[in-house]
């Protein structure tokens, strides 16, 4: 343990109201600490610069999965294990379950939360591409009240988000669709399990009579933020599902992404694999 533990503080408010009081009191001094699966790694390495944390693990208000006719709403503290076990998610949002099953090992899945995965804001996180394609919305609460925002657009730059320091992410809402969607999720990690993504692809589509009526595409580990590929979507929406359309889509995506080099992979690799996965996604769509 390289951190100097006495310099850190962790407070545990008994209720959501008191948690919001703490966040409001000294804007930005206290930051939420949920499952800790990212923060504890940094702490161990002596690389956790922020010192004051608000332990939200015990807040009941942030737990539970609610299903209505229009939405599936997940408490921000829903763990990856709980995501995988939820029947409605398995049936209607299978990519979210797959992302959860491919995140870390069992211990991480028992402790890591969906809300934490969002606000930790790693561009390599596994659930954001699925959340982006499912048009997720986020509930942000402060003493001033609650607001719902679209997840698409939530990340504004590397580790930058539209959440204010006095706000807490409390719930994630997924709109249910009456239409039958086709889903394609593929995480390309540094190995088969317990890996960080080099490229993570999520796509959904609705195809009727050989024509792409609608589709959504998102990529992880490609940009400073989890990326919804709207230009590629626009190019494909309404088009026939055939080889020229696929070639055209590859060309559009090639211009839409500018991946980076880092210690896990190269820009060239991320670029090429993203295009290959797009093509594979489109080819696997049944007309």
């Amino acid at each position, binding site marked *: 343990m390289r951190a*100097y*533990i006495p310099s850190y503080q962790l407070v545990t408010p008994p209720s959501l109201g008191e948690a919001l009081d703490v966040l409001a009191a000294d804007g930005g001094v206290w930051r939420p600490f949920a499952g800790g699966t990212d923060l504890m790694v940094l702490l*161990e390495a*002596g690389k956790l610069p922020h010192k004051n944390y608000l332990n939200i693990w015990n807040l009941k208000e942030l737990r539970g999965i609610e299903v209505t006719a229009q939405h599936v709403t997940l408490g921000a503290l829903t763990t990856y294990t709980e995501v995988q076990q939820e029947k409605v998610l398995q049936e209607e949002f299978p990519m979210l379950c797959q992302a959860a099953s491919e995140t870390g090992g069992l211990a991480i899945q028992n402790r890591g939360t969906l809300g934490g995965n969002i606000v930790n804001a790693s561009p390599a996180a596994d659930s954001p591409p699925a959340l982006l394609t499912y048009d997720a919305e986020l509930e942000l609460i402060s003493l001033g009240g609650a607001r719902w925002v679209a997840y698409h657009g939530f990340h504004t730059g590397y580790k930058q988000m539209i959440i204010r320091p006095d706000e807490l992410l409390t719930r994630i809402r997924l709109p249910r669709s009456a239409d039958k969607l086709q889903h394609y999720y593929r995480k390309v990690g540094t190995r088969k*399990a317990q890996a960080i993504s080099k490229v993570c692809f999520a796509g959904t589509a609705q195809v009727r009579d050989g024509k792409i009526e609608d589709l959504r595409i998102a990529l992880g580990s490609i940009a400073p933020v989890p990326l919804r590929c709207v230009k590629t979507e626009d190019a494909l929406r309404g088009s026939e599902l055939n080889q020229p359309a696929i070639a055209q889509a590859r060309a559009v995506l090639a211009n839409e992404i500018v991946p980076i080099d880092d*210690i896990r992979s190269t820009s060239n690799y991320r670029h090429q694999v993203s295009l*290959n996965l797009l093509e594979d996604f489109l080819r696997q769509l049944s007309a």
Partner: protein
Amino acid sequence: MSASPNHPIGKSVPRKEGRKKVTGQALYVDDISFAEMIYGVTVRSSVPRGRITNISFAGDTPWDEFTIVTAKDIRDIGGENYVALILNDQPYLADEVVNHAEEAIVLLAHPNKYLLEEARRNVRIEYEELPAILTLEDSVDKKEIIWGEDNVFKTFLVDKGNVDEAWTNADLIVEGEYFTGAQEQLYIENNGVIAIANEHDGVTVWGSMQCPYYVHKALIKLFALPEDKVRVIQTETGGGFGGKEEYPSIIAGHAALLSLKCGKPVKIIYDRAEDMVATTKRHPSRTRHKTAVTKDGKLVAMDIEFVIDGGAYCTLSPVVLSRGTIHAAGPYFSPNVRIRSSAVATNIPPHGAFRGFGAPQGIFALERHLDKVAKAVGLTPDEFRRRNFIQQGETTATSQIIREKVDMAGLLDRAFELTGYHEKRQRFAKENEQSRVKKGIGFATFMHGAGFTGSGEVYLASVVGAEATSEGRVKILAASTEIGQGTNTIFAQIASEALGVDSDLIEVAQPDTANVPNSGPTVASRTCMVVGKLVESAVLALKQTLVGSGLLREDYSQSEFQEACRTHIEKFGPLKTFSTYQAPPNIHWNDEKYQGDAYGAYAWAVYVAEVSVDSLTYEAQVEDFVALQEVGRVINPVLATGQIEGGVAQGIGFTLFENVVWQNGRMANNQMTNYIMPTPADIPPIRVYFEENPYAYGPGGAKGIGELPMDGPAPAILNAIENATGVSFDHVPLMPEAIMENLTNVLHGITL
């Protein structure tokens, strides 16, 4: 010979210390504590090469509470500031200059671990930076002279026949160049020690290590003490793989320096980040081959240039180079062989011992190259090798006559039968045309010498003792360490077989330089074959003593043996016998010409890998692996199989996953999140088979096996990848990114 109740050799006797390990009773060094013990940490260089201009102790750290040690303290105690090993060029603490990033400069000790880490961050070291050499190529090209006169630690020349004259007799000459990367040992337990040092008692060290007497030798010099004032005790050790061969001498010296200065026991335990960034790794290598063959595929000449990157100090590089050099020409007969090899200096942390010790590097190059030669001459990889396998009575590159029976062709037949090699070769070629996932199968044929190279064992003159107790038990006294590979268990089996008593009656003493003789380091696949043989002869001498004294008949029962021990000790006092290494007959080695009997015995092997390469993601997956080897006699099938499985898994990591990312001479991915070792999901079923051909000078006929499985996976897998994709790759680790760069042209548009 007495009647052995159960003949334990060849049986899977349970691991001696297994119960303690699985129940958590085994004490590793970090489980051990002493009264008043405090903790130590190391402050390291942040530049690859430079002159230290200032060291300051900053921040709000209460520095007067800290014990601080620098190179000056070593001068003050009259010690030698070098790690005694081969060339003695590596300082314990950098003095004025640093030659690699993460070189130790300052040591700190304090009772509070957390304050210690804060203090470590508050030591400020300033440098005048000097130009550094960060790659093997730049060192060879002498872009800067950073070590000695020419950046070269050591060279060897093996010269058999006349290579220069042979080129004219060849129908075909094939050249190739091959590279291997660094690899981290990744033992489960990081490096750690506890030291107690004071002027009265000298220095005592407990720690995780492979070679207590290496540490002993180094500490004697560091503290300028007589032998009996330095005591080194191995604690339960969670893996080594060579990574705890030479490095423990450094961390032990550091802890002891702190302890001497503060007068308290000092514990230093590295965390994973420090262990990965600062300690030794496998030597990166470059091998160039120029091979002459006749049109019917007979080897005429092999000209091999083998270079390894030793890092900033010599450490064990000459010995690694030696083994790599001798293995570079493989299990083939060629009338003319020249191997020119060198170990060169770079400004990166010294590379060191790692399972295989230079052999995997050279064997990778050769086994890739021979597939290329086969192709050029128009033969299949197997047919080409069959025409050149070494036969009994023929000579190796060092002109060693192979006297033992060897049947590489027979091993190849069996390995192909076990894998369906020929059928798959045909089927995959057909299926791959239509498939997004390309399959392939490839193999490597190789040998690995057991024990120290050449006259090494003679110089070592290892000693093993056997001591009878008054309860009629026998204790084996050896410095050979149990590091997870099964030393304790096989020593007990060997002694039990030789004495004809239960293996439960055999104890293996904890390696402690105050109590056990120097049986040599636990390295070089020598513990079973060489030290095991000494165990056998030491206990036989014990039995002879009992028989000779008239207390035991030649044909005895276990209880009679125990009774004889008891009586002998009552009558004559302690009963101990010792056995010293003697070379088997007909072993001759010329160290100057590097010719002769390089090793007493070789293990012979054929490894076959089946792979798939996904043309969407360029990931290669090993789908099946057969490891077939002839290792003399297998002492303990479960342990031996485990050694092979573990080695193959480590070899798969070396081949496809474990990529050390260097940034300015420093490992940038020194965490297990980003230095990728394969998980069970990345490893295929590893099918292990043994052929037995007892070796006359090994205990019960055994040869060495520890390093062997590291040699075969890399070339077998890359040969399979060439079979799958049609592209020949010349380096490991082979990451998907590199496969992509070479494959997109081949695959794009064909199969997607």
